């Protein structure tokens, strides 16, 4: 067996990440690979292209890299590896098949079946070839003890139609090859989280051909991190970038543990047209010798201080624009800003060099709203004024 179960982020797919037929092809091929051997599996993956190879998150990161956007270094444990694992724990496919017939309203049954699959996945031995490649890639990434983030990357997530946001697992600050492999396995199992299964049943999404990639990236120790929208989440205004951020890891913000600082920046003029400093009460960070993230009280001196300088905010907005331009539609982006400890004065040098994008997805709320045209051409330009002045206010 010599398939490539691990790929560089830049190698993974762009096209039709959520494509169900493609994903079915991968899983089918992977399933077949279990029986027929690795060479066939690799070929099958090639035949269906990059679709579903790394899952949605991995594909998104790959595309960012190819667009020249800086992302943290990392690799993908592909859907092929997941297929190997699944073939090992459920050779006949009957277990996974039983999920498809579950009644979306029967939560106890969903819980029972899902828990069964999860426990099989986390307790069974990972196929040795896969385990070896994951460990090798981890060592290459940062040595034997580097902290990494291990993130689920389902082949159906992050599509505009079906948002799986938050339904699959992410493990931060994981250290050591064994721990990483363990986290990878838990990510695989999270495809069968109760909520995920219930969600798929409700939407009647096919179970056949689902797969899970896993992204492993170097853990950043950011000075500040957060999210940004390349349009106003409040007004839908496409001429601005809205940034929210906090000191340290962005997980404090995503978890809702801080009121973040916010900036609104004009894409056209670079002017900061709105700013608010939030009460950032909690600080997320990770320590060299402890696994996971620890939350502590934000040092007093940092609470009321904005986590970004104006230049940094503008540089972030510029990256946001670049990502948006690449995709052609407004984006919802997770970012981190490298730098010294927040307690130090801001780093000098180009803020743009210190920005990393952790994830980008199309903005979905405003995109879904149909807008009537704001104005239509009139016979004479002055007719616009006449029409307005003739209207009672």
């Amino acid at each position, binding site marked *: 067996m010599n398939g490539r179960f691990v790929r560089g982020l830049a190698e993974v797919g762009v096209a039709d990440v959520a494509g169900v037929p493609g994903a079915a092809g991968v899983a089918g091929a992977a399933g077949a690979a279990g029986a027929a051997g690795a060479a066939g599996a690799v070929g099958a993956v090639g035949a269906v292209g990059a679709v579903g190879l790394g899952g949605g998150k991995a594909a998104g990161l790959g595309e960012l890299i190819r667009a020249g956007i800086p992302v943290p270094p990392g690799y993908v444990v592909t859907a092929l590896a997941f297929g190997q694992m699944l073939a090992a724990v459920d050779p006949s496919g009957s277990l996974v098949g039983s999920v498809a017939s579950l009644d979306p309203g029967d939560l106890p049954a969903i819980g029972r079946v899902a828990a069964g699959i999860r426990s099989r996945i986390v307790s069974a031995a990972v196929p040795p070839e896969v385990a070896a490649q994951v460990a090798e890639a981890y060592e290459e990434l940062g040595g034997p003890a580097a902290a990494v983030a291990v993130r689920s990357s389902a082949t159906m997530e992050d599509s505009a139609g079906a948002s799986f946001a938050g339904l699959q697992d992410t493990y931060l600050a994981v250290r050591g090859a064994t721990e990483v492999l363990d986290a990878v396995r838990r990510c695989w199992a999270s495809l069968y989280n109760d909520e995920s299964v219930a969600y798929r049943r409700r939407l009647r999404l096919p179970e056949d051909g689902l797969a899970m990639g896993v992204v492993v990236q170097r853990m950043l120790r950011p000075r500040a991190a957060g999210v940004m929208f390349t349009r106003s989440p409040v007004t*839908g205004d496409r001429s601005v970038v809205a940034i929210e951020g906090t000191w340290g890891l962005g997980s404090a913000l995503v978890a809702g543990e801080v009121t973040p600082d916010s900036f609104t920046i*004009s*894409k*056209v003029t670079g002017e900061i*047209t709105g700013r608010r400093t939030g009460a950032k009460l909690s600080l997320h960070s990770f320590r060299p010798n402890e696994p996971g993230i620890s939350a502590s009280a934000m040092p007093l001196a940092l609470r009321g201080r904005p986590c970004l300088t104006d230049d940094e905010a503008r540089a972030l907005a510029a990256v946001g624009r670049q990502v948006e331009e690449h995709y052609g539609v407004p984006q919802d982006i997770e970012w981190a800003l490298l730098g010294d400890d927040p307690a130090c004065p801001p780093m000098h040098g180009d803020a743009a060099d210190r920005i990393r994008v952790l994830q980008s997805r199309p903005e979905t709320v405003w995109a879904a709203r149909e807008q009537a045209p704001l*104005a239509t*051409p009139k016979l004479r330009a002055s007719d616009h004024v006449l029409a307005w002045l003739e209207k*009672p*206010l």
Partner: protein
Amino acid sequence: MDGTDDAARFPLPSEIADAPGAEDWRSMYPYFTRFQPEDDQRFWFYNSMHFPEPMPAFDTITAEVPYSAIGANTARVFVFPTTLGIEHRIVNGRVYITAIPVLDEAEIGRRAAIFGERASYYYENWDSLYEGWKVRMRALIDEIESVTVPSLPEFEDASVVFGSVGIAQNHYVRENFHKCIDLFSKMWHHHTEMLMLGYGAYVVFFQFCKQAWPEISDQTAARMVAGIDVIMYRPDDELRGLARLAVEAGVDDLFTEGCSPPVVLAALASRGEDGKRWLAAFEEAREPWFNVSTGDGFYHHHRSWADDLTVPFTALPRYVAQVRSGTLSARPTEELRAERERIASEYRSLLSSSEEQTAFDQMLGLCRRVFPFVEDHKFYCEHWFTSQFFGKIREFGALLARFGVLAEAEDVFQLHHTEVDQALSDVMLAWAAGGPPLGGVFWKPIVASRKKMLAAMKEWSPPPALGPVPTALNDPAVRMLWGVTQERIEAWLSPSSDEVRGFGASSGVVEGPARVLTDVNQIGEIRDGEILVCPVTAPSWAPVFGKIKAAVSDIGGSMSHAAIVAREYGMPAVVGTGDATKRIRTGQRIRVDGDRGTVQVIE
């Protein structure tokens, strides 16, 4: 005030107490400016934009005449569908205004039919009409400049007899005074002839921008429209040219900080050909470009550069120094033009359909068509004409002083124009009869008491608005010209104690020491890196913008002079604060937030 209904209202006009020490203020102003009992039912706001100080009696003409002209043009000439004119009232020397909206649908429709025809004629022929306007305005300026004030000598000139003129010059005292008033009125009719339509085009473009990009700042929308070759940069450009010439002609040694204009001019006269060359250029620049008021043209004491050379001669030494060090740069008009186009085309590209883009092009195009008038009319009207007008009135004041009716020429501005009329009649009669005029004992005590009352009223803080809070603001003029919006009214109702609020006119946030100047003649006091806090800035203030870090003004909107210049210099500005010069003291450290339109006193 009691009862729950009072929760959301401003003081009623009838509740305003007389400013202590100015109990007799009503005697200064005509009856038609007084609040009536039924005015308690209406919403009024203090027009601090134009009238930030108590009105001297004569200066009320800068309210009476413009409102007479604005209403005529909106209500009667162009027949705006949803608005008639503006009413004004004076209390404790302050001018409050309200607009009369048209609310009845049928009436709006009837007016709209007439308005459509008339307004589109102006919009469609704007450029040629504006050319014609300039010719008419220049003629009015020539007329006001040529008004003479009779000297009333002991004996009439012989030519009156041998030319069989038949009219003695005391007749012309009244006729020529009336001519000044009449010309002032004609100027204001011209002023509002095109301005309301010009603002209309701007507001429509602006509202489209706000709808398409709800978070666009006022100043960014303005930047897409703003002209590059705006006439009000010209006076400052002339000074830069004079500074260059001074260095080139080798007379630059005379321009030192604190130099006295008459001394420098006398010295130049004795510097041979080079001095002459500079003086000739100076005379050329002076007319008309030194006719810039140090204010906004609404008060007689806002003198022009021509009246008082201190302002240009404060700027000249600095410009001369910059010429020597090679740092005097011309306005980068090409870059400004390119940036304006870039901004407009980037916003345009954010629109989602070509239909919207075409509509945007139409609105922006119309706006740019009307904008040269909107930006430049002020120089012709409020600066050039008005400087000459107040100058002539001052000459009539000198005549009254010569005849002992007034103690000094400046006192003429303590009389309403109808009272000046009476005083001049007195002089006409006295010159004819050979006896003394009777006005001395009559007017001098009145003038003295009015000066005291003005000082007392200056101490009174006028509420930003009076009367009930309106449920809807249905007048486009009020929103267009004064920026009175529902949000503004909310802010008035809940004033913030440590924050001065105005319009963010140029973005950015800076901190620095405040320099509060109440008069442009103090500009010499400004030190590098200070934040200018002033009542209003006009083109005559331009020279200080090279020194300061930010600008804050009591008066002005996002298209005001301070706003435009600050944007060009890329410095934060907050305008239209109403009372920044009162609440901030020189030396205090302040933070100016040009994005939010706030000024905070830090220490």
